[in-house]
């Protein structure tokens, strides 16, 4: 059974079909890139997979459970336990230090554990920045804190919406290296991106257009660059 399966998903706003009959399955450990022009429905799809929104029609099976039918309260719990989120705008809590930002995710999940949070920061190369506030960190560093936070509760899927959209080349490479490591550890990654270079390093690239899947390709170059 696939880790994630979308069956006939549509999301309709008024007479706009943001998603139009999407069928898709993602295997455990797979690294998928989602591309497509602005307004093609990428974020809408991420919101649905991330349990933050419900489709108008269709089934979303995560671990065999149809999350489209769950209550908002259960969705919160599923999101907390199974999903790790990485954002284009990082979304760190600006009055908490780097390590505290990681601990917030632990707090909602189970229990804050500073040692573990520091280890997660060390893993993204920020051991010496743990006590800094977001305003004292560069964009790349903030994104790494965001990644450490997404990883801290060992989620089944990491969803990243334009994770390198606000980063320069050097920081983009740091983030992609982290994704490579995560992939080697069998973490399931779904990365939305505009950037062909970011899509290229994934195993599989899905392209959306007008809410439909335009192409779904396995990257033959995968693992060679």
């Amino acid at each position, binding site marked *: 059974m696939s880790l994630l399966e979308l069956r006939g998903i549509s999301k309709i706003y008024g007479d706009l079909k943001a998603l139009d009959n999407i069928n898709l399955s993602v295997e455990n450990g797979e690294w998928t890139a989602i591309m497509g022009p602005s307004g093609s429905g990428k974020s809408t799809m991420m*919101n649905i997979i991330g349990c*933050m929104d419900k489709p108008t029609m269709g089934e979303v099976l995560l671990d065999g459970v149809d999350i489209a039918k769950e209550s908002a309260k259960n969705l919160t*719990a599923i999101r*907390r336990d199974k999903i790790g989120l990485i954002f284009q705008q990082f979304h760190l809590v600006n009055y*908490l230090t780097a390590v505290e930002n990681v601990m917030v995710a632990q707090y909602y999940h189970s229990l804050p554990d500073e040692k573990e949070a520091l280890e997660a920061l060390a893993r993204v190369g920020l051991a010496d920045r743990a006590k800094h506030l977001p305003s004292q960190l560069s964009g790349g560093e903030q994104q790494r804190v965001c990644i450490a936070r997404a990883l801290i509760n060992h989620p089944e899927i990491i969803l990243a919406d334009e994770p390198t959209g606000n980063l320069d080349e050097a920081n983009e490479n740091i983030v992609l290296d982290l994704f490579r490591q995560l992939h080697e550890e069998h973490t399931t990654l779904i990365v939305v991106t505009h950037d062909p270079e970011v899509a290229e390093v994934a195993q599989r690239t899905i392209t959306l257009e007008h809410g439909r899947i335009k192409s779904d390709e396995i990257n033959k170059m995968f693992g060679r660059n």
Partner: protein
Amino acid sequence: MFFKMITASLVRRRSRMLVALLAIAVGATILSGLVTIYIDVPRQMGAEFRNYGANMIFMASSNDAVFDMDTVQTGIDKIEQGKLVGVAPYRYETVRIHEQPVVAAGTDLSQVQTTSPYWMIDGEWPEKDEEMLVGQNIAESLNLHAGDLVNVMGPTEEDSEDQLNFGVDIRVTGIVETGGKEEDYIYMSMADLETLVGEGELDVVELSVSATAEELDRYVKTIESEAEGITPRLVKRVTQSESTVLGKLQALVFLVTAVVLVLTMICVATTMTAVVAERRKEIGLRKALGASDASIMKEFMGEGLLLGGVGGILGSVLGFVFAQFVSVRVFASSIRYQPLLLPVTILVSILITGLACLFPVKNATTVDPALVLKGE
């Protein structure tokens, strides 16, 4: 972690929270300050009135005995040593100022200060002969002011054979304000009055006795039966006016406190609404990280209540200082600290803040977590 989050939010976002904290602290200051005054001033005023204000008067009996200071002394002797706080004899005679008849009271003005502590003097109390106080109404109709030197004449020829044509120049040292009939007289020393109108009998003597109601009753009985020529009476007037003044004062304090608390609540509610609006992204993020509505409410409530607590502590300290200041300035006495007021003020602050936060916090839970994936 919960505590760390809410304190960090307050400490590291100072400027915004300072406004709310200030509002709460000001509210709590006024609350605790006014309540301190509310509790303490009646205690002090009561003590002052009961201990020092006149609570007994002597009048002449209808028999032939002369009613003068010697007679009065026989009555005073019946009162235990140390219980008598002040004795002010009064003799009322008509004199003339600017050809207008005026009722002058001859008295012992240093004693009046203890038997009538509630008199408000615009100016100074006289310290020697040829100085006088003028009632507010007289001062107005004759256009007299503190510091004026006034020629006071004895009664006209029809009234008395041995009138003084030249009169006596007496300096006005102060204007008496009581809101009562005292404002219709002038007050001078007994010696000055005798110079103007000659010797005569007293009309009334006001006494201030520091004693319980039973003791006072006993003194009245003893004096009535044993002191010739004196009819003693107990006076209730002061206690009555005391209670109306206090009633008004307390109603005012209640009103002001209620208004201030409502204003505080509005200010805190406004600030919290702004805070929630400002932090929509953060709330969305917390929800995206898996925060339930209950934890979001708990966190914002926690911040609000912590703010209320700190504001309350600040307010009760400042409130005491404020009450002390008011008390010293207005009532010329220092205030006793009410230990119970500290927890009460803090509790009320927390309660008010909690109430004010209710709506904004409920609002915070409606934020959609999907918001965090919307690019801006």
